[in-house]
């Protein structure tokens, strides 16, 4: 099976990754929170989250956004490209059923180390940055 991946030589600093929209619903939040083994109510209990914690809706777990952003770069890069480094921060919370725009841009290309670094982030409908990340990929 031939691997399909982006040719490192064609990648330029500043290149924009194709953007994607993700809208996690209550089932996504429950499935993720359960899969990582926690029972934090702000991700599945709406009455508690709104009434007690005073959020406007269920909160999307930060690491779920990080997973979406990691998928964005991996799909863009292609088969067999490894994630070498990943760093992310949450600036503002994301809420259930609200579309998240996932965006990315190449910030560094190291032909010798065969590594590409991208800045990737999620934005809400008001174009506010919610989670921002830097991901370094390594070509084989």
């Amino acid at each position, binding site marked *: 099976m031939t691997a399909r991946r982006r040719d490192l030589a064609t990648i330029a600093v500043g290149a924009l990754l194709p953007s994607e929209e993700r809208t996690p619903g209550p089932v*996504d939040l429950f*499935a993720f929170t359960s899969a990582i083994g926690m029972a934090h109510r702000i991700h599945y*209990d709406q009455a508690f989250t709104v009434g007690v914690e005073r959020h406007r809706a269920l909160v999307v777990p930060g*690491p779920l956004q*990080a*997973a*979406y952003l990691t*998928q964005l770069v991996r799909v863009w890069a292609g088969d067999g490209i490894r994630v*070498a480094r990943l760093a992310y921060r949450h600036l503002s919370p994301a809420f259930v059923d609200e579309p998240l725009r996932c965006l990315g841009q190449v910030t560094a290309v190291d032909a010798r180390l065969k590594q590409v670094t991208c800045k990737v982030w999620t934005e809400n409908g008001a174009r506010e940055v919610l989670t921002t990340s830097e991901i370094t990929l390594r070509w084989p």
Partner: protein
Amino acid sequence: MTASNDLVTPEALSWIGHRYPDRRLTVTELQIQRFSHSTRETNPVHFDGDAARAAGYPDVVAPPTFYVMLRTAPYHTVPLAQLGQDGYAAEDLPPIPSIEGMAGEDRVELGAEIIAGDVIFVVKRIADLYGKRGRSGPLAFVVFEYEMTKSSGERAVLERFTRVLR
């Protein structure tokens, strides 16, 4: 950084370098599949052993952010009566009189990929602890370091995850 403020006392600072009990975790194909479905992964190497082997892996391979499960589940797998009212497990933290905790930055270096069946050795330490003055008052930053190693001795994950307390 070892700046102290009202939240970060010398006693709290003495927790820098504290090593939590080590953990040995068995990674299963089912855990990888559940995590992968929950993030709407589509790459078959994260679900199907035949697809993973065709791509050169010994078995189903975990996606890159799977380390979050290994860093979270062990500390939240406690009797339900021990969970807080919000469903979050009480953390073993340095003595910091805080009201709430938030996730700060997560910085991860990924090495050998995690495969279904792996037994992962997890060392958790407090790598750093410092205070800052935020807009709404003093903040305490607790930097946890997680080192996750495969039984082959290869390092899978080196993570520095910061909790921000106020």
